[in-house]
């Protein structure tokens, strides 16, 4: 399987705090990689580094073999890295349709084609009926779906999902899990951060565990779940 993303000794420092500490990470095409770890472990920061929202303090990032360590965020989006924001960022004064359209324009410069593509994605995300509503009026679940929809509109090779299931009740969560599988089946590589074990264990092909910015474990869900370090630092004995 070709490698989609690789980081070498990726590091980010905030003042005295090393939020991401020499992390070596790789994801292959079509994989779903779960990224877990205690609060403040550096997961979102890792996403921010990979997507270009934050500048690295050290280390390198490769996307499809190409170094992107210093590429600006929009360039990475063009290359095929889509992301959602943990703190959601809809364009509040645009409609749901327009929110997605903005992303769709990247691959479909013509408006007609972009609209068609956006409509398709809305349908897939179950948002069609809200197409004309303003993004402001969506509920939490709706906004989370919109976050995914917008990222999907880029037709990304790699999708970074930051807690898109959190805040959904189990039934809704199941729906989103189903969606994520479908996205993967279309060939998109996914890295997801989530604290809900049922979801992450069920979905991930492989799991990487961060604490205090360091990678402490990596492996299949069962391997990670039984790793004493992980249990100690994150899962708890419960």
């Amino acid at each position: 399987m070709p490698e989609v993303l690789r980081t070498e000794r990726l590091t980010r420092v905030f003042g005295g705090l090393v939020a991401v500490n020499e992390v070596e990470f790789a994801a292959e095409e079509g994989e779903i990689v779960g990224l877990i770890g205690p609060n403040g472990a550096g997961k979102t920061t890792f996403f921010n580094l990979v997507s270009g929202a934050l500048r690295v303090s050290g280390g390198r990032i490769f996307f499809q073999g190409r170094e992107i360590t210093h590429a600006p965020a929009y360039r990475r989006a063009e290359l095929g890295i889509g992301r959602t924001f943990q703190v959601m960022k809809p364009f509040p004064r645009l409609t749901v349709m327009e929110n997605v359209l903005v992303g769709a324009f990247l691959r479909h410069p013509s408006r007609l084609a972009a609209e068609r593509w956006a409509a398709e994605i809305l349908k897939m995300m179950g948002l069609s009926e809200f197409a004309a509503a303003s993004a402001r009026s969506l509920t939490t679940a709706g906004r989370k779906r919109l976050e995914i929809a917008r990222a999907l509109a880029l037709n990304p090779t790699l999708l970074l999902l930051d807690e898109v299931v959190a805040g959904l009740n189990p039934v809704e969560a199941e729906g989103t899990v189903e969606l994520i599988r479908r996205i993967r089946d279309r060939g998109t590589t996914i890295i997801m951060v989530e604290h809900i074990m049922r979801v992450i264990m069920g979905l991930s092909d492989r799991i990487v565990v961060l604490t205090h910015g360091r990678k402490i474990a990596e492996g299949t869900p069962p391997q990670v779940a039984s790793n004493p370090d992980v249990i100690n630092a994150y899962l708890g004995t419960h």
Partner: protein
Amino acid sequence: MRDPGFTLTLRHLQAGYGDVQVLWDVSLEVRPGELVALIGANGAGKTTTLRAVASLLRARDGEVQFGTNRLDRMSAHDIVNLGVAMVPEGRQLFNQMTVEENLLTGSSLSRTRPLRRSNLDRVYALFPLLRERRLQEASTLSGGEQQMLAIGRGLMSAPRLLMLDEPSLGLAPTIVEEVFGVVQDIRREGITVLLVEQNVQQALRIADRAYVLESGRIVLAGPGLELLQSAEVRRAYLGI
């Protein structure tokens, strides 16, 4: 020490945003010392209910009563003075203030100021991470750290009734356990709790009673464990 006599009662509450009505008819009751859970799908109106109680949103019709006080006729800050605190959904921190300043703001009323030191110690004991981040600006905390801070701030006001809106959201499993532990501790101290949670199973397990909200109406009510066994709840909210 149990607080006598302050029951929260909602009668036929209606509320909404702009020309959108969200709550159609919500009646519920939280008695002193109780832990009551409010569950429901996304968009059912749980947050809206809490906001209406806290007077962040004007009720269109119906009543909200706490003891003998009509909350729906009071402004939000006065309600806090009565001892009703809320940990809002989405954290709502004071972003450009430090962690400690956020906590101190939670106890700036004359009623709570004397308890400030001990409350602060209690919150730090509960969330040691927050002590480490004392002087960090709230906006730079991780998602989970922000959630802890929001809960901590709510506790700083030594409330009679604490309303929690999805406190476990975005927390690591161990912390989730802790938070549910804290909620039970709070209740044990005699503080009344109204809990909104998507972690339905856990919530129902610790709740004395629970209400199920659907499209702005209460559709089910009963003791927590009983609802947990209910086939409807299991199918609709637990996916079992």
